């Protein structure tokens, strides 16, 4: 425990944000070229830094230079980022002639007739740190170093930091913002780039003498790429005619595990350590293999340059290469993978274990279900892997044997891999509580599977947000509730090795999934991680090459798989093309996808996406069938009708392929190639993530098809010429997907994703220019008129009598009313109804985002509440002397809108003195409410006001509106030309009250 650090004692819930308030911000400037390759680190050399290039920036900026390491430290991340961009740095190129790129592991093809096999397997030096940016903070002071940030390899990180600072590891404290599974992280799959960020932060903190925060985001992916492979294992085998492996050759390039952090290499600290601490060649241990071959050669080269060892990781790497290779040999020579292994196994216990596991897992039963029970977007596969590790004294008999069988489901569209079943048999000596072992293994296995089977929470994730809150909010700016975990200072490599459960039994974990993936997809992944992105890319590549499944027996659904992959590839090409020029070819019609094509989960996600996008609000006519379209929109350019988005093949989108659907959503081009008008907010929908769009397509296609009558738009020339939209799009449409803002919290980015994209708030709430394009900048969310209603400003121009707060916005969006503002009515009522389908977290996120646009506080202050009470009280006392209006008000409104002192069930709960509409510069919403009433149909108990269109003349409505303005918004100027406005707005209204019994 360190007490010397000024940042200590941060277990308080304030968490990272408290740290940040004391920290300065660092951004590194990496050389144009740096690379770890073949056990060597090479980079461009620093010639000089011109600090005068920062003269134009205000505020204290420190430039940190150590060896080839360059960093900039400033008082804000924005300033540091600017400075890093602006800093003139001169590098001397020492680029190697042949820039080998060993990280690329191509999907190789087999070459029958089959006699020999040769494959190489890699292990990356760095895992990516998810898609989630987070802070890494280091504080170096008084011979103490404290580091806050995510790390999967605390031991290795401490060693790096110790080398960097020459401090003893006992003087270094690591605090993790991720508070769970610290032990599993410790036995993880290797380092991720959070360690590089931590070393950068520590280096800069030592140089400037204050805590330094580094933003760990996509920029560090460059380090992942540069560090390449930590491990490369090449395997060769020659087969005899009966399929037995006659000759087996195993070559491991690097026996000891992990590559030091980039900052360590650049600053030169790593090189010094290498010379002094690590005499080479001492720890050459031949790798162990449980199998016996007639002719075998096993070799592992020891690399002194890799500074830390991690036997757990080494075991996993070796088992991954060996077990993947045997699986490949078996598949390519058309043998059963388990049978092949048994042929080369002499260890009786191991044979027994494998046979019992195979039996328990029903290995022989085909993993393919009949085609009708498996949704067509899914591919299933089953894999096997085995390992046996000797114990610490290299006694093979006493070692641990472990046999695994895993089933996976791969979604061919998204690349998601689900580990659906796992059977693990473990032989761990005589004194093991098998139940507990089973339990531990399950937890470890599944826990272990998560990081590389890639389900990282992200801005387009649907759910209750609880995970994002517990796991990631703590690492962003917002306050956290979880106290950081402190890695025990006594933890060491040896201690990890002591645990019999940690070493051997995890080794087959990666291989078994790689093998199952191959069984499912026909693609061999020879380097982890197997994230959804990588799997999807590999699937798309193999589809483009037209060489889908080389050695996989043909399955029933093969042809459909092909078609799907082809469609996915086409989408990408179409997307690129449409961005580059006004591309408007038709996309060939397809027959409607089968109802069982998509999983229930995908369709459910799509339902939420549809609710967030509120498709039905526009695509349903008054009293019509949901999503059949036909709703008329009055625009300055003429009347537009919404279209049928049910999967009807003639009048709806039944013949739309996903490619066509995505093009419409992102680029506003219909399947037939004609342009859509931006009344359809594709300008916002373009920001939607791929996964959400796919789910939305799945959902819409799963709905019952309904035929609709075609409505003809009535647009004036030249707006009736759809092709002109091509030019409009180049001017006003940006089809780039949503990019989260690293300076903002998880909650904000989620809210921004929903509000700017699916929620398309700005489609109504931003004014449009003369060409019908949304204005941006200061006019973003500045309020506009839609369909006869005013969509009030959602930025600082808000006219609400009591200022909005984030809490009020949340109430309004979730419950349909805010006690300090009023109810959601008009076109906003169905929006609130749609939001009712969403998880609470999402609505909170939208409220958070909108509050940020309004610069609104989190909650309303006591002064706000007192002000509201004051308004209500004064409106009750001072009635203006407008006789006609007052009579109408007393007769028609007062029964519900004036408090009689006795509570009633049907009265308006929110006083008109707080109503935003009465305080607006425009009377439109008040007139609409009087004429049509307030019907929050979908939100029970909110706003049930009859319309008075049939009871009041225009003059009466005008009298009433004028009276309401004078009484409830006395500080505002009276509205002008109210009666004319009423005449304009009255047209669409019929009797909205219900008929007599």
């Amino acid at each position, binding site marked *: 425990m360190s007490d010397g650090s000024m940042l200590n004692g941060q277990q308080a819930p304030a968490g990272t944000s408290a740290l940040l308030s004391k920290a300065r911000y660092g951004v590194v400037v990496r050389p144009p070229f740096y690379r770890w390759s073949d056990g060597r680190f090479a980079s461009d050399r620093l010639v000089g830094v011109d600090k005068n290039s920062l003269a134009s920036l205000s505020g204290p900026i420190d430039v940190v230079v150590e060896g080839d390491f360059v960093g900039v430290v400033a008082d804000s991340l924005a300033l540091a980022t600017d400075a890093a961009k602006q800093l003139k740095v001169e590098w001397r190129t020492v680029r190697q002639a042949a820039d080998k790129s060993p990280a690329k592991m191509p999907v190789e093809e087999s070459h029958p007739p089959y006699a020999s096999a040769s494959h190489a397997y890699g292990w990356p030096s760095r895992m990516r740190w998810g898609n989630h940016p987070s802070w890494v903070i280091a504080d170096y002071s008084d011979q103490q170093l404290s580091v806050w940030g995510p790390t999967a390899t605390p031991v290795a990180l401490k060693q790096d930091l110790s080398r960097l600072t020459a401090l003893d590891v006992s003087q270094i404290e690591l605090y993790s913002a991720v508070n769970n599974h610290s032990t599993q992280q410790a036995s993880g799959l290797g380092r991720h780039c959070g360690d590089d960020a931590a070393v950068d932060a520590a280096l800069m903190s030592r140089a400037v003498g204050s805590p330094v925060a580094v933003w760990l985001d996509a920029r560090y992916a460059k380090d992942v790429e540069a560090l390449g492979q930590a491990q490369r294992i090449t395997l060769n085998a020659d087969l005899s005619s009966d399929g037995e492996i006659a000759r087996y050759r195993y070559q491991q390039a690097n026996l000891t595990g992990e590559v030091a952090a980039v900052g360590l290499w650049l600053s030169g600290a790593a090189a010094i350590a290498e010379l002094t601490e690590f005499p080479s060649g001492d720890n050459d241990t031949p790798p162990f293999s449980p199998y016996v071959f007639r002719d075998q050669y096993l070799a592992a080269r020891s690399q002194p340059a890799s500074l830390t060892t991690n036997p757990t990781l080494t075991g996993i790497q070796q088992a991954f290469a060996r077990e993947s290779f045997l699986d490949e040999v078996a598949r390519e020579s058309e043998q059963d993978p388990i049978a092949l292994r048994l042929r080369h196994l002499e260890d009786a216990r191991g044979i027994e274990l494998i046979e019992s596991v195979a039996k328990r897992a029903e290995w022989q039963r085909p993993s393919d279900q009949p085609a009708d029970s498996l949704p067509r977007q899914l591919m299933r596969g089953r894999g096997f892997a085995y390992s046996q590790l000797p114990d610490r004294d290299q006694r093979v008999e006493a070692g641990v044997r472990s046999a695994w069988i895993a089933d996976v489901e791969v979604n061919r569209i998204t690349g998601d891999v689900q580990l659906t079943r796992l059977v693990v048999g473990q032989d761990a000596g005589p004194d093991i509580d098998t139940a507990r072992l089973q339990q531990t293994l399950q937890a470890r296995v599944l826990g272990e599977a998560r990081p590389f089977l890639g389900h990282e929470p992200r801005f387009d994730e649907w759910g209750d947000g609880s995970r994002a809150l517990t796991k990631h909010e703590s690492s962003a700016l917002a306050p956290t509730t979880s106290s950081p975990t402190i890695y025990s200072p006594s933890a060491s490599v040896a201690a990890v090795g002591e645990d019999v459960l940690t070493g051997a039994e995890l080794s087959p974990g990666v291989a078994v999934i790689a093998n199952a993936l191959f069984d499912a997809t026909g693609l061999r992944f020879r380097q982890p991680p197997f994230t959804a992105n990588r799997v999807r890319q590999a699937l798309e590549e193999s589809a483009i090459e037209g060489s889908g499944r080389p050695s996989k027996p043909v399955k029933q659904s093969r042809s459909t798989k092909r078609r799907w992959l082809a469609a996915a590839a086409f989408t990408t090409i179409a997307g690129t093309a449409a961005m580059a020029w006004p591309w408007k070819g038709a996309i060939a019609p397809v027959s409607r996808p089968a109802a069982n094509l998509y999983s229930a989960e995908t369709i459910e996600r799509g339902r939420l996406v549809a609710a967030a996008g509120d498709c039905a609000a526009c695509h349903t006519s008054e009293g019509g069938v949901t999503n059949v379209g036909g709703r008329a929109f009055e625009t300055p350019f003429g009347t537009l009708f919404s279209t049928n988005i049910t999967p009807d093949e003639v009048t709806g989108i039944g013949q739309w392929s996903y490619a066509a659907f995505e093009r419409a959503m992102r680029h506003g081009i219909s399947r037939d190639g004609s342009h859509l008008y931006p009344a359809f907010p594709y300008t916002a929908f373009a920001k939607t993530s791929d996964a959400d769009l796919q789910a939305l397509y799945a959902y819409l296609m799963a709905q019952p098809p309904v035929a609709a009558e075609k409505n003809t738009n009535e647009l004036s020339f030249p707006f009736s010429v759809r092709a002109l939209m091509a030019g409009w799009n180049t001017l006003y449409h940006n089809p780039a997907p949503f990019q989260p803002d690293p300076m903002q919290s998880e909650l904000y980015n989620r809210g921004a994703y929903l509000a700017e994209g699916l929620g398309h708030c700005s489609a109504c709430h931003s004014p449009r220019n003369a060409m019908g394009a949304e204005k941006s900048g200061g006019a973003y969310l500045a309020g506009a008129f839609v369909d006869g209603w005013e969509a009030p400003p959602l930025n600082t121009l808000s006219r609400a009598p009591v200022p909005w707060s984030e809490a009020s916005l949340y109430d309004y969006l979730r419950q349909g009313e805010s006690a300090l503002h009023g109810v959601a009515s008009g076109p906003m009522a169905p929006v609130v109804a749609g939001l009712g389908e969403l998880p609470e977290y999402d609505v909170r996120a939208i409220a958070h985002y909108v509050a940020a646009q309004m610069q609104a506080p989190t909650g309303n202050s006591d002064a706000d509440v007192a002000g509201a009470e004051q308004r209500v009280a004064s409106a009750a006392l001072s009635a203006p002397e407008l006789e006609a209006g007052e009579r109408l008000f007393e*007769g*028609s409104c*007062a*029964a*519900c809108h*004036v408090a*009689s*002192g*006795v*509570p*009633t*069930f*049907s009265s308006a709960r929110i006083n008109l003195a707080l109503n935003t509409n009465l305080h607006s510069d425009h009377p439109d919403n008040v007139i609409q409410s009087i004429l049509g009433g307030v*019907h929050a*149909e979908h939100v*029970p*108990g909110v706003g*049930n*006001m*009859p319309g*008075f269109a049939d*009871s009041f003349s225009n003059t009466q409505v005008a009298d009433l509106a004028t009276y309401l303005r004078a009484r409830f918004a006395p500080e505002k100027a009276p509205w002008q030309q109210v009666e004319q406005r009423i005449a304009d707005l009255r047209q669409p209204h019929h009797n909205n*009250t*219900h008929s*007599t*019994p």
Partner: protein
Amino acid sequence: MTLKLTINGQERELAVPPQTPLLNVLRNDLSLNGPKYGCGLGECGACSVLIDGMAARSCVLPVSAAVGHNVTTLDGLAQNGQLDPVQQAFIDAQAAQCGYCLNGMIITVRGLLNHNAQPTAEQIRAALEHNLCRCGTHVEILQAAERAVVINAVALEEAPYE
């Protein structure tokens, strides 16, 4: 889609569009004709019913709004064959001409007494301000309301924890 309502102490399950005014459901589907259709705009009070003991204008209230609440109509006011004190007071005071508004008057006074068992004459007038009577029996109605306060107090004393 069916809605579950509790009306006059009975659970009712109804297949009606959720936006139907509660009044229509009470009168047409359940034959509870105590509440009357007057203006249809929530102005006159003839349609009043009690929801959770509070007066509500059932002509402007969608039936879905009553789900999960206790609805009491004039028809369900009497308990065990015993008229509600407010009903008894209106009979005693003969406070009716055509009687069309009386449902609203009785329900509103009942709602008032539920909230305040000892209202002043001023408070009674305020509570009844937005219940319209076209026959001009306001004086009798106010007398009836005042009498209801007394009878109600006696009834409460007899069975205070009913």
